[in-house]
């Protein structure tokens, strides 16, 4: 009676691809309107992002952050909640890592470094605990509370960085440098250990962490009992109650995992690149994570791809702004906006039509 369900390659492959193409067409139109050649612009972007070791390194460095924040949003999505607080949780992740690095610098690195990473995850999780509790047991909407906690995190960090945690004698709102044992090695350093030479870029070990996190999230959601409970609560809370799964408890657990993933974003920027805690280091990655999760349809593999796309947009966009003075930083944000609009917010705009088209042809093939 019902139509055959659309296969995965269609919903997860063709549909997002069409969305991205449409986004680029719209962006191309804008670029043409300001008198630049869209094809040339696209070429510069792609070459800038993927055409050299240097560009690729930066692209993957951005990708790393987006994978973490995208996964964070996705895990909450699966439990039926919209965690907008990735930004704040990531900031707190940075604080957690910094607190460990600055208070225990005497520890040997094999102990200190894992503790720093753990500090980032725990602090990110801790920052979502209150919104999660309020959502689960008091019904305060998680969107509202996590937005408010983003502001709280930002102001708390400013207070700490101009006050108690500021490096003595410095004018900048930042902490002292961490000991080397509390920082993650850069990719080019690691390549050096194996006798390879890579161009120096901010890409660091946390990229590997991000891929590992994506795999672990996949296992969690689709291969564990907890993941089953999370998806049940997200898809049908009444069925969860009927099954004896407490939606409130699962909500808190899923959001804690989500917060921890967002907190881990700090391993890339703080432990990997900066080696100290600085202000506003998230640079909007928490919000990009929402678009990444939407575009990746909540699936870790899709999230890695979507994060890569945004990495290309960030790095290629920077190159484009540098090459074409007419195309300003703001123009790049417009292009990114189109991608978010078509691939995120309007992700389903073409989905039905493409599916219907497929079913018509597939149906013919069967009846013929």
């Amino acid at each position: 009676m019902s139509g055959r369900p659309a296969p995965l390659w269609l919903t997860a492959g063709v549909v997002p691809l069409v969305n991205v193409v449409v986004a680029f067409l719209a962006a191309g139109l804008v670029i043409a309107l300001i008198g630049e050649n869209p094809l040339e612009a696209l070429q510069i972007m792609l070459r800038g992002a993927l055409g050299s070791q240097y560009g690729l390194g930066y692209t993957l460095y951005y990708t790393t952050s987006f994978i973490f924040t995208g996964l964070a949003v996705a895990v909450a999505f699966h439990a039926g909640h919209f965690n907008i607080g990735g930004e704040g949780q990531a900031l707190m992740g940075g604080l957690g890592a910094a607190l460990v690095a600055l208070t225990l610098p005497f520890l040997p690195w094999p102990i200190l470094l894992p503790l720093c990473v753990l500090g980032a995850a725990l602090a990110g999780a801790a920052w979502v605990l209150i919104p999660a509790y309020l959502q689960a047991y008091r019904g305060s909407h998680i969107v509202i509370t996590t937005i408010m906690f983003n502001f709280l995190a930002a102001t708390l960090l400013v207070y700490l960085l101009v006050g108690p945690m500021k490096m003595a004698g410095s004018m900048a709102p930042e902490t002292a440098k961490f000991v080397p044992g509390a920082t993650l090695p850069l990719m080019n350093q690691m390549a050096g250990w194996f006798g390879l030479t890579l161009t120096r870029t901010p890409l660091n070990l946390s990229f590997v962490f991000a891929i590992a996190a994506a795999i672990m999230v996949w296992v969690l959601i689709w291969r564990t009992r907890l993941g089953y409970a999370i998806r049940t609560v997200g898809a049908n809370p009444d069925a969860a109650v009927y099954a004896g799964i407490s939606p409130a408890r699962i909500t808190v657990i899923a959001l804690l995992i989500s917060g921890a993933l967002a907190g881990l974003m700090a391993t890339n920027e703080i432990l990997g690149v900066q080696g100290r805690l600085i202000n506003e280091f998230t640079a909007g990655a928490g919000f990009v994570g929402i678009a990444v999760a939407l575009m990746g349809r909540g699936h870790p593999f899709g999230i890695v791809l979507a994060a890569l796309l945004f990495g290309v947009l960030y790095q290629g966009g920077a190159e484009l702004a540098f090459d074409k003075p007419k195309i300003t930083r703001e123009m790049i944000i417009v292009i990114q906006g189109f991608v978010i609009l078509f691939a995120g917010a309007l992700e389903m705009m073409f989905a039905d039509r493409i599916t219907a088209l497929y079913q018509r042809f597939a149906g013919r093939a069967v009846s013929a």
Partner: protein
Amino acid sequence: MTPPAIQMTGIDKRFGAVHANSAVNMTVQKGTVHGLIGENGAGKSTLMSILYGFYAADSGSIAINGTPSLIRTPADAIHSGIGMVHQHFMLVETFTVVENVMLGAEGGAFTARGAATVRSKLLELSQAYGMDVNPDAVVSDLAVGALQRVEILKALVKGADILILDEPTAVLTPTEVDNLFVLLRRLAAEGKTVIIVTHKLKEIMAVTDRVSVMRRGEMVGTVETASTSPADLAELMVGRRVVLTVEKGPARPGGVVLDVQDLSMRDARGTLRLDHVSLSVRAGEIVGIAGVSGNGQSELLEAIAGIRKPSSGRVSLNGAALDCGGRDDPRTLRAKGLRHVPEDRHRMGLVKPFEAAESAMLGCSDEERFGKGIFLDRDLVRADCAAKMAAFDVRPADPGLRTALFSGGNQQKIVLAREIERDPQLLLIGQPTRGVDIGAIEFIHKRIIALRDAGKAILLVSTELDEVLALSDRVLVMCGGKITGERLPDQTNEQDMGLLMAGVISEQPGQAA
């Protein structure tokens, strides 16, 4: 000869790959009551939605009273004299009857004039058709039967000559159903045309002049009601002979399995939903609970199943006291041998976006047999589901298919398979065959009887009176959260049950015993 009130010709409608209506023709004569029956998904709702302008047909034409009409919106339909009474009433609870009826016809920025017009029309119509409705009553104070009359009046005031009623008896007591049918006959006698969409064969036989049967998007026939029988209609609907009666031997009840004493429950607003309910179910017996939907049956099942916490009362299973909704949540109760087929499988019993295998382990996902430690083994989960599907003849037998893509009957079989196969001590069943095709009803009824014969205790809730009477060994009737009486199915009749269901008589067997 007068042209037919409605002539739908060659109506075709696709939703994606679903061919909901395929070249459907339907003719309804003026001044008749016309039935439209078919199983779920047969295309009746689609056809009526096209007639009322909710959907546009892909092709085909509609003529109203002989005039070809283009109906693209409900406004067009109303303009053509078509009125619809939905299964779920579309009324504003805090408004009076007049205010509800004048919605969409307020007559300008100030409502006084519109209200006066509507009031006079209302009085005129309710007198003409013998409908007793107080125009100034607030809708939330009215009984269900009265609400339905308001809906019918609403359509008539808007000038409807053709009334479509979608499953009009689902929420009515037998007496209210009788009253409705008297009204429908009277409307037809006055020259109005009535279409009633239903799946209840008995009602079709009772009230219609002619009946059209749909199956799988096609119109399989239109017959004179007087020259057909329920068995013939069922055969037309399903495409094969079906057994409409339930065959079962006498019960051989054993010891008391479930004992409920003075169970009361208030909802969040403080309304008493369960009022000192006492009952017991013994091993090897089916106790049925009859009643109009919304009289506490859901609360009773959910309280015993540990989903909602009762405010007072005692529940015990095999003599051991339970703390339902407190320490005993659905999970621990399942471990104690209590299984539950929920009334609304879409809301509770299944997770529609999940693959069937995942829905088939809802509530059992902690069991060792589905994987080691914290992990679930997809192969084990699917193999378990495949076994259930084979045992219950679920079609298609594909554990990987999304739950939502199964028909109602097959979804219900998945739920039943899940709840029955773990050898329950006590099975709670709510609405075992709601939205289930006739063919699957037969199968489900047999399974329930087989479970009883295997010595299990079964508490059954259904708003289908025939089903309760056919399956149960004892029947309790609920009204307003109370048990109003207890009967043996072969020692009662519809009038008797109707009085208990409406709360006109109340015997409170729990206190007498």
